[in-house]
């Protein structure tokens, strides 16, 4: 549990995410090895590491898109087990943004945003639409509400995906490489929305290679390699004074290209 004391911010508020000795295997392959992680309410965390290091798998375990086989994961006081009811409860509170947006192509932008509030939160249609327009406004894409996802650019689609997740009014937002599938000129518009969200006090876990984003908004950077958390530190410390050799190597590869 050394992680908690690494950074003073983590002491503020209660831990909203708790991972204790989490392990996961794909068949024989050990993808997550003894992950211990505690995230405080309002904390912004960037998870980085080479491909195949298990960083996506880790955050996908946090809303049970992947199942862990050993250890405990507790989200906002609810433990993730095989219990379907608990899984549904956790997913309501945890929004997720995917690398490939995963918008529903047969629904309009507005319908993408209102679907879960109407069916999961049982909100009346008018209220759900008002909420959806509020968040579409916030990601600056309200004028596209009647269009279908296929008619939008990648950056616009990803902003819709963020709005869609926010419409459920989640306590935690997970981002799984949200800018990796975007054309370079569209990365900024998505990062701007994420920075705006971070400034609003949302608890965020973000798997990304955008080190600029990590430097400017993260409270803590977690470096993973071969299924382990190798190092975690506030961004200033992480980038200026990395402790382990693996981190140094990774940073030299990612920063000097």
């Amino acid at each position, binding site marked *: 549990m050394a992680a908690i004391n690494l950074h003073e911010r983590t002491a503020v508020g209660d831990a909203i995410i708790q991972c204790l000795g989490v392990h996961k295997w794909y068949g024989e392959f050990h993808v997550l090895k003894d992950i211990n992680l505690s995230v405080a309410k309002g904390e912004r965390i960037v998870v980085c590491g080479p491909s195949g290091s298990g960083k996506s798998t880790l955050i996908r375990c946090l809303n049970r*898109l992947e199942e862990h086989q050993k250890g405990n994961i507790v989200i906002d006081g609810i433990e993730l087990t095989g219990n*379907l009811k608990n899984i549904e409860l956790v*997913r309501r509170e945890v929004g997720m943004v*995917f690398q490939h947006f*995963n918008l529903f192509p*047969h629904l309009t932008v507005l319908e993408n945003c209102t679907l*879960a509030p109407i069916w999961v939160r049982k909100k009346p249609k008018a209220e759900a639409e008002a909420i959806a327009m509020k968040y579409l406004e916030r990601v600056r894409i309200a004028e596209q509400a009647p269009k279908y996802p296929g008619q939008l650019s990648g950056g616009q689609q990803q902003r819709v995906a963020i709005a869609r997740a926010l419409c459920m009014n989640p306590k935690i937002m997970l981002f799984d490489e949200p800018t990796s599938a975007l054309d370079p000129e569209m990365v900024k518009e998505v990062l701007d929305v994420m920075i705006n969200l971070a400034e609003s006090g949302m608890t965020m876990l973000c798997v990304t290679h955008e080190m600029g984003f990590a430097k400017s908004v993260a409270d803590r950077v977690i470096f993973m390699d071969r299924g382990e958390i190798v190092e975690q530190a506030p961004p200033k410390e992480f980038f200026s004074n990395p402790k382990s050799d693996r981190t140094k190597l990774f940073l030299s590869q990612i920063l000097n290209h």
Partner: protein
Amino acid sequence: MAENVHTAPATVERPPALTLGPIGWLRANLFNTWYNAILTILIAWALFSIVPPLLRWAIANASGFDATSQQCRAASGACWAFVSEKLRFILFGTFPYDEQWRPLVAVAIIIMTLAAAANRRFWKPWFVAVALGALALVGVLMWGGAFGLTYVENSLWGGLPLTLILSVLGLSVAFPFSILLALGRRSDMPVVRAFSVAYIELIRGVPLVSLLFMASVMLPLFLPTGVTIDKLLRAIVAFILFEAAYMAEAIRGGLQAMPKGQYEAADALGLNYWQAMRKIILPQALAISIPPLVNTFISTFKDTSLVIIIGLYDLLGTAKAALSDPAWRGFYREAYLFIGVIYWCFCFSMSKYSRWLEKDLYRGHRR
């Protein structure tokens, strides 16, 4: 710089004349390569040797609609009098002659209901009630025994209404059943999956004819004496069982074509299994499955003619029966051509509609 981009050049250069107009079209489409040119000539020759004789037989040398069978036999062309003489028998079978307006109205109701169901505006839960109402109306018209209509037992039904009832009722009951089977086959629950796989593979492994035989001959053996199930009902049940297995495989294809991200996005938003299926997965998977589904619909519509083996007279059955009249024996070309045209009209509309529907469902949201 920007203004210059859109200014027209001083002279507009035209493409070479030989690539334009009818000659250009011929060159591009019919004679663009030497083997294409040979094919074009062969097909033109085949058309020339088939179409004129056919027209001579069907029109020029045909005897009139009111000719007698003797006049027909004397003529060298088609005998359309056979069709007009036997029209009502072919269309309505042995339904009492004076009551044949009833199956006619029933057919009209079925076709109107199908036309309405084809419209996406009516794809609402309440339309199920409308369809059931139409079904009840068809039942009353065909059976009678109420509202002053005389009772007609269903062994007297035949022709077009029988074909339509078998295929429409069979397919519309089989469809929801097939969705469940397709989902079952992809289920995480081993028992559900095993049942679905076993059902689909068992039914697909036997010919429809044997299933119809089983329904009509074997099933009564398992029932306690004195209990009988109506022959028509048994045939419909056999169709439902058979088509459900085929459609389930068509739908499974659509389900498998769905990107994993769609399932994950639905899960991540907290939708439960049935919500995710109903709102996200099935609307897209069914749209992908339209071509194979319509393929099944069309073959089912034509397969209804197999019920003749258990003694039901559908459109093909009544046409065959009409040919057994000694006075009109031998005019099989006219008979089969006539019902062929009826079958073709229905099948072609299905195929046309499915192509329109595919386009309509995909409009605006191509990935």
